[in-house]
């Protein structure tokens, strides 16, 4: 490794600038691409990013949700690399969980998956001191773990107990889903899949087809049409958080 010298650094910048300008001129000619991406990444342009024209949402038909089944939970854990062993079960991260409900008066039972509701007015975002808890333009609520300080205030604020805290060092993360010690996390609607045009892992894995994912803002999407046609409810609707997740049959 050579120590860069000041003179040669200036010279290099000059040459690089000239080369860059030259390449830029070449790129204007139609059909030519800048050859500067690494070999491992085939040349495709960066995506446009999340857009506020889209609002991702989910519809869960709890009448189809089977009581003992936890396929969605397992799929989430596999996809998102939630695989650490924790001795105290209360310290285990749960991005999605099955809740069994019983009506005490009638005895009617049913079950449903509960995950981050991706509210449009998220209390977790309001209380985060650093702004790590954030809402993306397309409605997905995320934790920016680069600036999360692990104060757990968002966990106190969430009405759905959707957030988990990582209590120990992790080593077996999925490269597409960074998660780590000392930060808070929650369901991301599998944002790494959504950004590729796929559906969240839980939705894919449900054997009964009880979960439907789509763009709430697109009048032609299946989810928007069903919500317009059929009765749906939101959990703790009285809080007026405008969640992206709706349920049927509760």
């Amino acid at each position, binding site marked *: *490794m050579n120590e*860069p010298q000041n003179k040669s*650094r200036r010279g*290099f910048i000059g040459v*690089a600038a000239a080369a860059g300008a030259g390449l830029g001129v070449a790129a204007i000619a139609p059909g030519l691409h800048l050859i*500067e*991406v*690494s*070999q*491992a*990444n085939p040349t*495709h*342009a*960066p*995506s*446009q*990013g*999340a857009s506020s024209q889209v609002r991702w949402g989910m519809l869960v038909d709890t009448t189809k949700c089977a009581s003992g089944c936890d*396929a969605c939970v397992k*799929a989430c854990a*596999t*996809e998102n*690399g939630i695989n650490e062993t924790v001795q105290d079960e209360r310290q285990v991260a749960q991005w999605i969980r099955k809740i069994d409900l019983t009506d005490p008066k009638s005895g009617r039972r049913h079950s449903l998956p509960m995950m981050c509701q991706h509210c449009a007015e998220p209390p977790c975002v309001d209380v985060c001191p650093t702004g790590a808890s*954030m809402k*993306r*333009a*397309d409605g997905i609520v*995320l934790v*920016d*773990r*680069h600036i999360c300080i692990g104060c757990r205030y968002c966990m106190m604020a969430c009405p759905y107990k959707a957030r988990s805290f990582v209590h120990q*060092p*992790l080593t*077996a*993360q*999925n*490269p*597409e889903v*960074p*998660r*780590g*010690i*000392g*930060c808070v996390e929650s369901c991301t609607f599998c*944002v790494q*899949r959504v*950004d*590729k045009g796929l559906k969240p*892992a839980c939705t*894919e*894995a449900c*054997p009964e087809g009880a979960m439907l994912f789509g763009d709430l803002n697109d009048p032609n999407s299946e989810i928007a049409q069903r919500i317009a046609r059929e009765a749906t409810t939101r959990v703790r609707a009285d809080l007026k958080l405008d969640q992206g997740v709706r349920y049927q049959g509760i």
Partner: protein
Amino acid sequence: MKLLRIPFAVLLAAFLATPLAAFAGAPKPVVKIENPGQCIAPADEMRRNHMEMLKHQRDRTLRQGIRGEKASLNECINCHASKTTGTVTGKDGFCQECHSYAAVKLDCWDCHQPKAGKHNAAHAETMGAKQ
């Protein structure tokens, strides 16, 4: 007591010289480029600016959802991971070598996976086919 001055002076000189010896002889990092010639920018530029590249891109990816930009951490790892250990940390790790020398602590690996390879690649493809 005057006799003790000489051994004392020798000891003091040795004590003072040790850090100097350390400075003079600190081993330079051994950086092994597994896939030469394919980096997104020249080595000098990467050495100086990789932290800024990663920092700005992480916000564009996470907060704005822009995928596929060139300074992707996973792509860096896939290319730079040691062929023997499969990772960029640990002994002879690409990132670890320079960062140990420069004494700049890396906390990327608290969250990011330093091992190369698409984890769950097999799982992801069969996800829809499961059950």
